[in-house]
Protein backbone atom coordinates (compact mmCIF):
# COMPACT_ATOMS: atom_id res chain seq x y z
CA UNK A 1 0.00 0.00 0.00
CA UNK A 2 1.52 3.33 -1.03
CA UNK A 3 1.87 6.22 1.38
CA UNK A 4 -0.89 8.18 -0.28
CA UNK A 5 -3.37 5.36 -0.52
CA UNK A 6 -2.62 4.61 3.13
CA UNK A 7 -3.21 8.25 4.07
CA UNK A 8 -6.42 8.24 2.05
CA UNK A 9 -7.57 5.02 3.68
CA UNK A 10 -6.84 6.35 7.16
CA UNK A 11 -8.47 9.71 6.63
CA UNK A 12 -8.41 11.97 9.66
CA UNK A 13 -7.70 9.04 12.01
CA UNK A 14 -4.23 7.72 12.71
CA UNK A 15 -3.71 3.97 12.74
CA UNK A 16 -3.46 4.17 16.52
CA UNK A 17 -6.77 5.98 16.87
CA UNK A 18 -8.41 3.41 14.62
CA UNK A 19 -6.96 0.54 16.66
CA UNK A 20 -8.07 1.93 20.03
CA UNK A 21 -11.47 2.91 18.61
CA UNK A 22 -12.08 -0.52 17.13
CA UNK A 23 -11.21 -2.45 20.25
CA UNK A 24 -11.80 -0.46 23.40
CA UNK A 25 -10.87 -2.70 26.31
CA UNK A 26 -11.60 -0.23 29.11
CA UNK A 27 -15.06 1.03 28.28
CA UNK A 28 -17.76 0.60 30.90
CA UNK A 29 -18.11 0.86 34.68
CA UNK A 30 -15.66 -0.25 37.35
CA UNK A 31 -16.02 -3.65 38.96
CA UNK A 32 -17.87 -3.10 42.18
CA UNK A 33 -15.88 -3.78 45.32
CA UNK A 34 -12.50 -4.08 43.67
CA UNK A 35 -11.03 -1.21 45.71
CA UNK A 36 -11.54 2.52 46.12
CA UNK A 37 -13.25 3.97 43.11
CA UNK A 38 -12.78 7.60 42.16
CA UNK A 39 -15.06 8.89 39.42
CA UNK A 40 -15.08 12.22 37.63
CA UNK A 41 -17.08 13.57 34.75
CA UNK A 42 -16.65 16.43 32.28
CA UNK A 43 -18.51 17.68 29.26
CA UNK A 44 -18.15 20.09 26.38
CA UNK A 45 -21.48 21.68 25.50
CA UNK A 46 -20.38 22.78 22.01
CA UNK A 47 -20.01 19.27 20.65
CA UNK A 48 -22.14 17.57 23.29
CA UNK A 49 -19.17 15.42 24.33
CA UNK A 50 -19.35 13.84 27.78
CA UNK A 51 -16.76 11.67 29.47
CA UNK A 52 -16.75 9.84 32.78
CA UNK A 53 -13.57 8.32 34.15
CA UNK A 54 -13.47 5.84 37.03
CA UNK A 55 -10.19 4.93 38.66
CA UNK A 56 -10.03 2.01 41.06
CA UNK A 57 -7.12 2.25 43.45
CA UNK A 58 -5.50 0.06 46.03
CA UNK A 59 -3.34 2.39 48.10
CA UNK A 60 -1.50 4.68 45.65
CA UNK A 61 -1.59 2.02 42.95
CA UNK A 62 -4.14 2.14 40.12
CA UNK A 63 -5.77 -1.27 39.82
CA UNK A 64 -8.21 -0.46 37.06
CA UNK A 65 -9.44 2.40 34.92
CA UNK A 66 -12.79 2.48 33.18
CA UNK A 67 -14.50 5.16 31.15
CA UNK A 68 -17.76 6.02 29.53
CA UNK A 69 -17.89 8.43 26.64
CA UNK A 70 -20.20 10.16 24.26
CA UNK A 71 -17.83 11.65 21.75
CA UNK A 72 -15.74 11.44 18.67
CA UNK A 73 -13.25 8.70 17.78
CA UNK A 74 -10.29 10.76 18.94
CA UNK A 75 -11.81 11.17 22.36
CA UNK A 76 -12.61 7.47 22.66
CA UNK A 77 -9.13 6.47 21.51
CA UNK A 78 -7.48 8.94 23.85
CA UNK A 79 -9.41 7.63 26.86
CA UNK A 80 -8.62 4.09 25.91
CA UNK A 81 -4.93 4.87 25.61
CA UNK A 82 -4.91 6.61 28.99
CA UNK A 83 -6.41 3.59 30.68
CA UNK A 84 -3.98 1.25 28.99
CA UNK A 85 -1.07 3.43 30.01
CA UNK A 86 -1.91 4.09 33.64
CA UNK A 87 -3.42 0.84 34.83
CA UNK A 88 -0.94 -0.67 37.19
CA UNK A 89 0.85 2.66 37.64
CA UNK A 90 0.80 4.97 40.64
CA UNK A 91 -1.57 7.86 41.18
CA UNK A 92 1.52 10.07 41.06
CA UNK A 93 2.30 9.06 37.52
CA UNK A 94 -1.33 9.68 36.54
CA UNK A 95 -1.00 13.16 37.96
CA UNK A 96 1.84 13.73 35.54
CA UNK A 97 -0.44 12.94 32.62
CA UNK A 98 0.72 14.91 29.55
CA UNK A 99 -2.09 15.85 27.13
CA UNK A 100 0.26 17.23 24.50
CA UNK A 101 2.17 13.99 24.42
CA UNK A 102 -1.07 12.01 24.13
CA UNK A 103 -2.37 14.13 21.28
CA UNK A 104 0.92 13.82 19.49
CA UNK A 105 1.00 10.06 19.90
CA UNK A 106 -2.48 9.70 18.49
CA UNK A 107 -2.09 12.47 15.93
CA UNK A 108 -5.17 14.27 17.13
CA UNK A 109 -5.90 17.38 15.03
CA UNK A 110 -5.31 20.61 16.94
CA UNK A 111 -8.87 21.79 16.37
CA UNK A 112 -9.94 19.08 18.80
CA UNK A 113 -7.75 20.40 21.62
CA UNK A 114 -10.65 21.88 23.59
CA UNK A 115 -12.45 18.57 23.54
CA UNK A 116 -9.29 16.72 24.53
CA UNK A 117 -8.92 18.96 27.55
CA UNK A 118 -11.89 17.07 29.01
CA UNK A 119 -9.49 14.23 29.63
CA UNK A 120 -7.11 16.46 31.51
CA UNK A 121 -10.08 17.72 33.53
CA UNK A 122 -11.28 14.32 34.65
CA UNK A 123 -7.79 13.13 35.46
CA UNK A 124 -7.19 16.19 37.63
CA UNK A 125 -10.51 15.65 39.35
CA UNK A 126 -9.79 12.01 39.99
CA UNK A 127 -6.35 12.80 41.37
CA UNK A 128 -7.85 15.45 43.62
CA UNK A 129 -10.50 13.04 44.86
CA UNK A 130 -7.84 10.43 45.50
CA UNK A 131 -6.15 12.94 47.77
CA UNK A 132 -3.23 13.88 45.65
CA UNK A 133 -3.76 17.17 43.83
CA UNK A 134 -1.71 16.97 40.67
CA UNK A 135 -2.38 20.46 39.35
CA UNK A 136 1.16 21.66 39.53
CA UNK A 137 2.67 18.81 37.62
CA UNK A 138 0.15 18.35 34.83
CA UNK A 139 -0.21 19.78 31.39
CA UNK A 140 3.37 20.68 30.65
Amino acid at each position, binding site marked *: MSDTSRAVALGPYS*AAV*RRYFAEPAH*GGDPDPGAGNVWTAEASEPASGAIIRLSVTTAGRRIRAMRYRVFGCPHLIAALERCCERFEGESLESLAEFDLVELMRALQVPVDKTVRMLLIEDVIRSVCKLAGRPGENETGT
Partner: protein
Amino acid sequence: MNAPDNSRIVYLDYAATTPIDAAVLEEMTGCLRESASYGNPSAIHIAGRRARWKIDAAREDLARLLGCSARCLVFTSGATEADNLAIIGAARFRAHRGRHIVTVSTEHKAVLEACAALAKEGWDVTRIDPDTDGLVSPEALADALRPDTQLVSIMHVNNETGVLQDIARLGRLCRERDVLFHVDAAQSVGKLPIDVGDWPVDLLSLTAHKFHGPQGVGALYIADRAGCGVVPLLHGGSQERRLRPGTPALALIAGLGAAARIASGRMASDLVHVRRLHDRLLGGLAGLEGIRRNGSVTSNYPGIVNISAAGVEGESLMLALEPVCVSSGSACNSQSGEPSFVLKALGRTDREAQAAIRFSFGRDTHADDVDFALRRYVAAVTRLRALAPGQAA
Protein backbone atom coordinates in the same frame (compact mmCIF):
# COMPACT_ATOMS: atom_id res chain seq x y z
CA MET B 1 0.26 -1.35 8.91
CA ASN B 2 -3.11 -0.71 10.41
CA ALA B 3 -4.61 1.19 7.53
CA PRO B 4 -8.07 -0.26 7.12
CA ASP B 5 -8.60 -2.47 4.12
CA ASN B 6 -11.20 -0.53 2.26
CA SER B 7 -11.02 -2.56 -0.89
CA ARG B 8 -14.55 -3.70 -0.11
CA ILE B 9 -16.52 -0.49 -0.15
CA VAL B 10 -20.26 -0.61 0.32
CA TYR B 11 -21.32 2.53 -1.40
CA LEU B 12 -24.62 3.85 -0.08
CA ASP B 13 -24.12 7.49 -0.87
CA TYR B 14 -26.06 7.77 -4.12
CA ALA B 15 -27.55 11.10 -3.10
CA ALA B 16 -24.01 12.53 -3.12
CA THR B 17 -23.00 11.01 -6.45
CA THR B 18 -23.93 7.85 -8.36
CA PRO B 19 -21.73 5.31 -10.12
CA ILE B 20 -21.57 6.05 -13.82
CA ASP B 21 -23.57 3.71 -16.05
CA ALA B 22 -21.44 1.49 -18.29
CA ALA B 23 -23.26 2.67 -21.42
CA VAL B 24 -22.76 6.30 -20.41
CA LEU B 25 -19.07 5.64 -19.99
CA GLU B 26 -18.88 4.04 -23.41
CA GLU B 27 -20.64 6.98 -25.03
CA MET B 28 -18.27 9.38 -23.32
CA THR B 29 -15.06 7.56 -24.10
CA GLY B 30 -16.19 7.37 -27.72
CA CYS B 31 -16.45 11.15 -27.84
CA LEU B 32 -13.22 11.68 -25.95
CA ARG B 33 -11.24 9.22 -28.00
CA GLU B 34 -12.34 10.80 -31.25
CA SER B 35 -11.99 14.31 -29.95
CA ALA B 36 -10.21 15.42 -33.12
CA SER B 37 -13.02 14.23 -35.33
CA TYR B 38 -15.51 15.76 -32.93
CA GLY B 39 -14.21 19.29 -32.83
CA ASN B 40 -15.52 22.44 -31.29
CA PRO B 41 -19.27 22.45 -31.98
CA SER B 42 -19.15 26.12 -32.90
CA ALA B 43 -17.00 25.41 -35.95
CA ILE B 44 -18.59 25.03 -39.37
CA HIS B 45 -16.30 22.26 -40.60
CA ILE B 46 -17.22 18.60 -40.54
CA ALA B 47 -15.73 17.97 -37.08
CA GLY B 48 -17.68 20.88 -35.66
CA ARG B 49 -20.87 19.70 -37.33
CA ARG B 50 -20.41 16.23 -35.89
CA ALA B 51 -20.03 17.67 -32.41
CA ARG B 52 -23.06 19.88 -32.87
CA TRP B 53 -25.12 16.96 -34.03
CA LYS B 54 -24.12 14.94 -30.94
CA ILE B 55 -25.10 17.81 -28.70
CA ASP B 56 -28.45 18.21 -30.41
CA ALA B 57 -29.10 14.48 -30.01
CA ALA B 58 -28.27 14.65 -26.31
CA ARG B 59 -30.58 17.60 -25.88
CA GLU B 60 -33.37 15.60 -27.51
CA ASP B 61 -32.71 12.67 -25.19
CA LEU B 62 -32.94 14.87 -22.14
CA ALA B 63 -36.03 16.62 -23.49
CA ARG B 64 -37.72 13.26 -23.91
CA LEU B 65 -36.99 12.37 -20.28
CA LEU B 66 -38.51 15.63 -19.07
CA GLY B 67 -41.38 15.86 -21.53
CA CYS B 68 -40.31 19.19 -22.95
CA SER B 69 -39.01 20.64 -26.17
CA ALA B 70 -35.25 20.51 -26.67
CA ARG B 71 -35.32 24.27 -27.23
CA CYS B 72 -36.11 24.77 -23.55
CA LEU B 73 -32.92 23.17 -22.25
CA VAL B 74 -29.69 24.98 -21.45
CA PHE B 75 -26.67 22.88 -20.53
CA THR B 76 -24.70 24.01 -17.48
CA SER B 77 -21.85 22.67 -15.38
CA GLY B 78 -24.27 21.10 -12.90
CA ALA B 79 -27.23 21.82 -10.67
CA THR B 80 -25.37 24.42 -8.65
CA GLU B 81 -24.93 26.55 -11.74
CA ALA B 82 -28.45 25.73 -12.95
CA ASP B 83 -29.90 26.81 -9.58
CA ASN B 84 -27.92 30.03 -9.63
CA LEU B 85 -28.87 30.77 -13.23
CA ALA B 86 -32.51 30.04 -12.49
CA ILE B 87 -32.76 32.10 -9.33
CA ILE B 88 -30.43 35.01 -9.93
CA GLY B 89 -31.17 34.97 -13.66
CA ALA B 90 -34.95 34.94 -13.31
CA ALA B 91 -34.95 37.46 -10.50
CA ARG B 92 -32.97 39.89 -12.63
CA PHE B 93 -35.19 39.12 -15.61
CA ARG B 94 -38.24 40.14 -13.60
CA ALA B 95 -36.64 42.81 -11.43
CA HIS B 96 -38.66 45.58 -13.06
CA ARG B 97 -41.86 43.94 -11.83
CA GLY B 98 -40.92 43.47 -8.20
CA ARG B 99 -38.21 42.19 -5.92
CA HIS B 100 -39.60 39.50 -3.66
CA ILE B 101 -38.73 35.83 -3.87
CA VAL B 102 -39.86 32.85 -1.81
CA THR B 103 -37.99 29.70 -0.93
CA VAL B 104 -37.87 27.06 1.80
CA SER B 105 -35.44 26.74 4.67
CA THR B 106 -34.61 23.13 3.72
CA GLU B 107 -33.49 23.84 0.15
CA HIS B 108 -30.02 23.00 -1.10
CA LYS B 109 -27.33 25.57 -0.36
CA ALA B 110 -27.10 26.40 -4.05
CA VAL B 111 -30.65 27.73 -3.83
CA LEU B 112 -30.39 29.29 -0.39
CA GLU B 113 -27.12 31.06 -1.10
CA ALA B 114 -28.27 32.26 -4.51
CA CYS B 115 -31.25 33.79 -2.70
CA ALA B 116 -28.93 35.24 -0.07
CA ALA B 117 -26.86 36.84 -2.83
CA LEU B 118 -30.02 38.45 -4.18
CA ALA B 119 -30.93 39.63 -0.72
CA LYS B 120 -27.63 41.51 -0.63
CA GLU B 121 -28.58 43.16 -3.90
CA GLY B 122 -31.85 44.37 -2.43
CA TRP B 123 -34.33 41.56 -3.01
CA ASP B 124 -36.66 40.55 -0.24
CA VAL B 125 -36.41 36.83 0.49
CA THR B 126 -39.00 34.83 2.42
CA ARG B 127 -37.90 31.42 3.64
CA ILE B 128 -40.84 29.19 4.45
CA ASP B 129 -40.29 26.61 7.18
CA PRO B 130 -41.63 23.16 6.33
CA ASP B 131 -43.56 21.14 8.88
CA THR B 132 -41.68 18.63 11.03
CA ASP B 133 -42.08 16.06 8.27
CA GLY B 134 -40.26 18.39 5.91
CA LEU B 135 -43.31 19.13 3.80
CA VAL B 136 -44.32 22.57 2.54
CA SER B 137 -48.07 23.05 2.76
CA PRO B 138 -49.90 24.97 0.03
CA GLU B 139 -51.24 27.22 2.79
CA ALA B 140 -47.74 28.13 3.92
CA LEU B 141 -46.81 28.98 0.36
CA ALA B 142 -50.01 30.98 -0.20
CA ASP B 143 -49.26 32.97 2.95
CA ALA B 144 -45.78 33.78 1.72
CA LEU B 145 -46.83 35.08 -1.69
CA ARG B 146 -47.09 38.84 -2.09
CA PRO B 147 -48.17 41.07 -4.93
CA ASP B 148 -44.51 41.76 -5.71
CA THR B 149 -43.38 38.12 -5.58
CA GLN B 150 -41.58 37.15 -8.80
CA LEU B 151 -40.13 33.75 -8.09
CA VAL B 152 -40.71 30.73 -5.86
CA SER B 153 -38.02 28.05 -5.55
CA ILE B 154 -38.93 24.70 -4.00
CA MET B 155 -37.06 21.45 -4.51
CA HIS B 156 -38.70 18.25 -5.68
CA VAL B 157 -36.83 15.71 -3.54
CA ASN B 158 -34.76 16.82 -0.58
CA ASN B 159 -31.14 15.67 -0.78
CA GLU B 160 -30.82 14.92 2.91
CA THR B 161 -34.15 13.38 3.80
CA GLY B 162 -35.70 12.27 0.51
CA VAL B 163 -38.85 14.27 1.32
CA LEU B 164 -40.96 14.71 -1.82
CA GLN B 165 -42.94 17.92 -2.27
CA ASP B 166 -46.25 18.16 -4.06
CA ILE B 167 -44.84 20.19 -6.93
CA ALA B 168 -48.01 20.15 -9.03
CA ARG B 169 -50.06 21.67 -6.26
CA LEU B 170 -47.48 24.24 -5.20
CA GLY B 171 -46.90 25.14 -8.83
CA ARG B 172 -50.57 25.78 -9.46
CA LEU B 173 -50.55 28.34 -6.71
CA CYS B 174 -47.65 30.12 -8.41
CA ARG B 175 -49.35 30.04 -11.80
CA GLU B 176 -52.51 31.56 -10.37
CA ARG B 177 -50.49 34.50 -9.12
CA ASP B 178 -48.28 34.77 -12.21
CA VAL B 179 -45.20 33.98 -10.18
CA LEU B 180 -42.33 32.02 -11.74
CA PHE B 181 -41.78 28.61 -10.18
CA HIS B 182 -38.32 27.06 -10.00
CA VAL B 183 -37.84 23.44 -8.98
CA ASP B 184 -34.48 22.01 -8.00
CA ALA B 185 -34.95 18.46 -9.25
CA ALA B 186 -31.32 17.36 -8.86
CA GLN B 187 -32.37 14.42 -6.69
CA SER B 188 -35.36 13.26 -8.75
CA VAL B 189 -34.56 13.61 -12.45
CA GLY B 190 -34.04 10.16 -13.90
CA LYS B 191 -35.49 8.52 -10.82
CA LEU B 192 -39.05 9.75 -10.52
CA PRO B 193 -41.38 10.51 -13.42
CA ILE B 194 -41.31 14.18 -14.32
CA ASP B 195 -43.30 15.79 -17.09
CA VAL B 196 -42.68 19.51 -17.29
CA GLY B 197 -45.19 19.69 -20.09
CA ASP B 198 -47.79 18.73 -17.55
CA TRP B 199 -46.37 20.44 -14.50
CA PRO B 200 -46.88 24.11 -13.71
CA VAL B 201 -43.10 24.60 -13.55
CA ASP B 202 -41.13 27.36 -15.24
CA LEU B 203 -37.56 26.51 -14.34
CA LEU B 204 -36.10 23.15 -13.37
CA SER B 205 -32.51 22.27 -12.44
CA LEU B 206 -30.77 18.95 -12.77
CA THR B 207 -27.30 17.45 -12.66
CA ALA B 208 -26.13 14.32 -14.49
CA HIS B 209 -24.06 12.72 -11.75
CA LYS B 210 -27.09 12.09 -9.57
CA PHE B 211 -28.53 9.68 -12.14
CA HIS B 212 -25.53 7.72 -13.35
CA GLY B 213 -24.15 10.40 -15.66
CA PRO B 214 -20.86 12.28 -15.29
CA GLN B 215 -20.00 14.97 -12.76
CA GLY B 216 -19.63 18.48 -14.17
CA VAL B 217 -22.68 18.73 -16.38
CA GLY B 218 -26.30 19.59 -15.76
CA ALA B 219 -29.09 21.55 -17.32
CA LEU B 220 -31.70 24.16 -16.70
CA TYR B 221 -35.14 23.81 -18.21
CA ILE B 222 -36.65 27.20 -19.05
CA ALA B 223 -40.31 27.16 -20.02
CA ASP B 224 -41.12 28.77 -23.31
CA ARG B 225 -43.82 31.11 -22.13
CA ALA B 226 -44.36 34.82 -21.81
CA GLY B 227 -42.81 36.37 -18.72
CA CYS B 228 -40.40 33.49 -18.18
CA GLY B 229 -36.73 33.97 -18.85
CA VAL B 230 -33.32 34.39 -17.28
CA VAL B 231 -30.51 36.90 -17.59
CA PRO B 232 -27.22 35.01 -18.10
CA LEU B 233 -24.57 34.87 -15.37
CA LEU B 234 -21.68 34.27 -17.75
CA HIS B 235 -20.85 36.30 -20.83
CA GLY B 236 -19.05 35.72 -24.15
CA GLY B 237 -19.92 33.49 -27.08
CA SER B 238 -23.35 32.65 -28.43
CA GLN B 239 -23.57 29.07 -27.19
CA GLU B 240 -26.75 27.84 -25.54
CA ARG B 241 -28.80 30.74 -26.88
CA ARG B 242 -26.32 33.10 -25.23
CA LEU B 243 -27.58 31.93 -21.84
CA ARG B 244 -24.50 29.84 -21.16
CA PRO B 245 -21.42 30.67 -23.23
CA GLY B 246 -18.25 28.59 -23.39
CA THR B 247 -17.13 25.66 -25.52
CA PRO B 248 -19.75 22.98 -24.83
CA ALA B 249 -18.25 19.92 -23.18
CA LEU B 250 -19.16 17.39 -25.82
CA ALA B 251 -18.34 14.20 -23.91
CA LEU B 252 -20.14 15.40 -20.79
CA ILE B 253 -23.23 16.44 -22.69
CA ALA B 254 -23.26 13.17 -24.61
CA GLY B 255 -22.93 11.41 -21.24
CA LEU B 256 -25.87 13.37 -19.85
CA GLY B 257 -27.89 12.46 -22.93
CA ALA B 258 -27.05 8.79 -22.55
CA ALA B 259 -27.94 8.85 -18.85
CA ALA B 260 -31.29 10.44 -19.73
CA ARG B 261 -31.94 7.85 -22.43
CA ILE B 262 -31.18 5.02 -20.06
CA ALA B 263 -33.30 6.52 -17.29
CA SER B 264 -36.25 6.90 -19.66
CA GLY B 265 -36.08 3.21 -20.33
CA ARG B 266 -35.65 1.82 -16.85
CA MET B 267 -37.05 4.33 -14.41
CA ALA B 268 -40.02 2.17 -13.47
CA SER B 269 -38.00 -0.94 -12.77
CA ASP B 270 -35.30 1.04 -10.95
CA LEU B 271 -37.97 2.47 -8.72
CA VAL B 272 -39.38 -0.94 -7.86
CA HIS B 273 -35.86 -2.08 -6.99
CA VAL B 274 -35.18 0.98 -4.86
CA ARG B 275 -38.45 0.60 -3.02
CA ARG B 276 -37.57 -2.98 -2.15
CA LEU B 277 -34.21 -1.92 -0.77
CA HIS B 278 -35.92 0.83 1.18
CA ASP B 279 -38.32 -1.63 2.78
CA ARG B 280 -35.50 -4.04 3.50
CA LEU B 281 -33.49 -1.33 5.24
CA LEU B 282 -36.38 -0.10 7.33
CA GLY B 283 -37.36 -3.69 8.18
CA GLY B 284 -33.85 -4.39 9.38
CA LEU B 285 -33.91 -1.35 11.65
CA ALA B 286 -37.24 -2.26 13.20
CA GLY B 287 -35.61 -4.15 16.06
CA LEU B 288 -33.37 -1.26 17.09
CA GLU B 289 -34.70 1.06 19.78
CA GLY B 290 -34.37 4.84 19.86
CA ILE B 291 -34.37 5.13 16.09
CA ARG B 292 -36.16 7.91 14.25
CA ARG B 293 -36.59 8.50 10.56
CA ASN B 294 -36.01 12.09 9.54
CA GLY B 295 -38.55 13.42 7.05
CA SER B 296 -41.93 12.29 5.89
CA VAL B 297 -42.68 8.58 6.02
CA THR B 298 -45.44 8.94 3.44
CA SER B 299 -44.10 11.38 0.88
CA ASN B 300 -40.55 10.60 -0.09
CA TYR B 301 -38.21 9.18 -2.66
CA PRO B 302 -37.41 5.72 -1.29
CA GLY B 303 -33.75 5.85 -2.34
CA ILE B 304 -32.91 8.18 0.54
CA VAL B 305 -33.40 7.07 4.14
CA ASN B 306 -32.23 9.39 6.88
CA ILE B 307 -32.07 7.95 10.39
CA SER B 308 -31.22 9.45 13.77
CA ALA B 309 -30.22 7.13 16.59
CA ALA B 310 -30.47 8.46 20.12
CA GLY B 311 -27.40 8.19 22.33
CA VAL B 312 -24.71 7.90 19.71
CA GLU B 313 -22.26 10.47 18.53
CA GLY B 314 -22.22 11.12 14.77
CA GLU B 315 -18.53 11.11 14.02
CA SER B 316 -17.92 7.90 15.91
CA LEU B 317 -20.91 6.34 14.22
CA MET B 318 -19.52 7.23 10.80
CA LEU B 319 -16.16 5.67 11.61
CA ALA B 320 -17.78 2.57 13.08
CA LEU B 321 -19.75 2.15 9.86
CA GLU B 322 -16.68 1.87 7.65
CA PRO B 323 -16.38 0.52 4.95
CA VAL B 324 -19.98 1.54 4.40
CA CYS B 325 -19.97 4.90 2.62
CA VAL B 326 -22.89 7.01 3.81
CA SER B 327 -23.32 10.67 4.64
CA SER B 328 -24.18 12.32 7.89
CA GLY B 329 -26.55 14.95 6.58
CA SER B 330 -25.82 16.67 3.31
CA ALA B 331 -22.58 15.89 1.54
CA CYS B 332 -21.86 19.56 1.68
CA ASN B 333 -22.07 19.49 5.44
CA SER B 334 -20.08 16.37 6.07
CA GLN B 335 -16.72 18.00 6.45
CA SER B 336 -17.67 20.92 8.58
CA GLY B 337 -19.13 18.89 11.42
CA GLU B 338 -21.90 21.45 11.79
CA PRO B 339 -25.27 19.89 12.50
CA SER B 340 -27.37 19.76 9.34
CA PHE B 341 -29.57 22.85 8.96
CA VAL B 342 -32.11 20.71 7.12
CA LEU B 343 -32.58 18.36 10.05
CA LYS B 344 -32.65 21.26 12.47
CA ALA B 345 -35.42 22.84 10.41
CA LEU B 346 -37.35 19.62 10.96
CA GLY B 347 -37.06 20.15 14.71
CA ARG B 348 -34.13 17.87 15.48
CA THR B 349 -31.71 18.84 18.22
CA ASP B 350 -28.07 19.46 17.39
CA ARG B 351 -27.24 16.06 18.77
CA GLU B 352 -29.93 14.24 16.83
CA ALA B 353 -28.89 16.01 13.68
CA GLN B 354 -25.23 15.24 14.18
CA ALA B 355 -25.94 11.55 14.68
CA ALA B 356 -28.15 11.32 11.59
CA ILE B 357 -27.04 8.94 8.88
CA ARG B 358 -28.24 9.24 5.33
CA PHE B 359 -28.40 5.92 3.53
CA SER B 360 -28.91 6.48 -0.19
CA PHE B 361 -28.91 3.83 -2.86
CA GLY B 362 -30.18 3.05 -6.31
CA ARG B 363 -29.95 1.06 -9.48
CA ASP B 364 -26.71 -0.80 -8.76
CA THR B 365 -27.23 -1.44 -5.06
CA HIS B 366 -27.64 -5.08 -4.05
CA ALA B 367 -29.74 -6.40 -1.21
CA ASP B 368 -26.43 -7.70 0.18
CA ASP B 369 -25.10 -4.18 0.40
CA VAL B 370 -28.10 -3.11 2.41
CA ASP B 371 -27.77 -6.14 4.68
CA PHE B 372 -24.09 -5.46 5.25
CA ALA B 373 -24.79 -1.83 6.08
CA LEU B 374 -27.60 -2.85 8.39
CA ARG B 375 -25.39 -5.24 10.34
CA ARG B 376 -22.73 -2.57 10.68
CA TYR B 377 -25.22 0.05 11.71
CA VAL B 378 -26.93 -2.05 14.35
CA ALA B 379 -23.61 -3.20 15.75
CA ALA B 380 -22.19 0.32 15.78
CA VAL B 381 -25.19 1.87 17.48
CA THR B 382 -25.28 -0.90 20.05
CA ARG B 383 -21.57 -0.66 20.79
CA LEU B 384 -21.48 3.13 21.04
CA ARG B 385 -24.53 3.19 23.26
CA ALA B 386 -22.91 0.65 25.53
CA LEU B 387 -19.92 2.95 25.84
CA ALA B 388 -21.91 6.09 26.54
CA PRO B 389 -22.65 7.42 30.02
CA GLY B 390 -26.24 7.09 31.13
CA GLN B 391 -27.34 10.65 30.58
CA ALA B 392 -26.30 10.63 26.95
CA ALA B 393 -28.74 7.88 26.01
